[in-house]
């Protein structure tokens, strides 16, 4: 359908043009600092929302073929950065259960790209996110959350462990820091610009 951006509605009601919106996803395993990053760069305290998804029942829920689908609730936190009066960037922390993302098209549809956060003590918790974005062709950058400035593994070691190509930007730092979060998002946008100009 066609939406009126700024046309007068019926009865001469005036409508000013609201800002346009884009979306960046923040992914990574449980407890890796997704909401921390969103909170560090967002102009508002991270907001919380939920969605109902209808999913196929797991084997353990099998009740003899009667119940084949079940509704589950997935939750996420998100924040907002107004980059100018006409443009707002929404940052969505993705739900930890990656298997639900495939059923939640609205979450990934239209995303500019993604930030995948990793914790050097359990890099494997980021594998599912990386696989997901690679399979969907969604550009991403890696943010290695170094709590308290601790760096226990070097960049190359992390790249090797995550089998990242050299083109994928990687930023190491404390995600509680607004500057680190900003640099991580900038790395993503620079990466998108480079990809677009060489396309």
């Amino acid at each position, binding site marked *: *359908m066609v*939406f*009126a*951006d700024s046309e007068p*509605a*019926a009865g001469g*009601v*005036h*409508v*000013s*043009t*609201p*800002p*346009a*919106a*884009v*979306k960046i996803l923040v992914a990574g395993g449980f407890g890796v600092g997704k909401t921390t990053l969103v909170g560090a*760069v967002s102009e508002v305290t991270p*907001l*919380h*929302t*939920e*969605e*109902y998804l209808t999913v196929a029942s797991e084997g353990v829920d099998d009740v003899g073929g009667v119940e084949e689908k079940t509704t589950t*609730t997935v939750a996420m936190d*998100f924040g*907002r*950065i*107004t*980059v*100018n009066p006409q*443009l*707002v*960037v*929404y940052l*969505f922390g993705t739900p930890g259960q990656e298997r639900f993302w495939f059923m939640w098209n*609205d*979450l990934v*549809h*239209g995303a*500019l790209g993604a930030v995948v956060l990793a914790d050097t003590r359990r890099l494997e918790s980021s594998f599912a996110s990386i696989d997901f974005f690679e399979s969907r062709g969604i550009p991403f950058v890696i943010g290695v959350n170094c709590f308290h400035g601790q760096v226990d593994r070097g960049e190359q070691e992390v790249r090797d462990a995550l089998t990242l190509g050299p083109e994928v930007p990687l930023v190491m730092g404390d995600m509680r820091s*607004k500057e680190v979060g*900003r640099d991580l*998002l*900038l790395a993503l*946008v*620079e990466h*998108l*610009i480079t990809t*677009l*100009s060489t*396309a």
Partner: protein
Amino acid sequence: MDDLEADAGDPEELSVRPYTLTQGRTAPARDDLTLITIVKTVDPPPGRSALRGLQPEHHVILRQCRGSAAVAEISAGLNLPVSVTKILIDDLVARGQVTTRPPIAMAAGNESDMNLLRAVRDGLRRL
């Protein structure tokens, strides 16, 4: 109605099932609202007579969207799942009481996309 926002706890604890607010509908009439579709209440806002038949949640949406808000923000403000929120917003779209703006779609190799990315970059640099 401000109490409604303050009192609304975990959806599990709501005294009514969420889809009661939508008269049992589980999907909006149209499926073009996204998490970041921007919703704005028409200006001037609908008068009292135009609000007949609306739920308190519709009033909350109309108030929140005087300055415009994304679907996800409205969902968070109402403490209702996104799918329920979309149905309520759709009611207001059908009544001509809010307008919506879809998110910017990225298409590969497009100059306007480059301008969009530059605008995002410049905005982030000012953080």
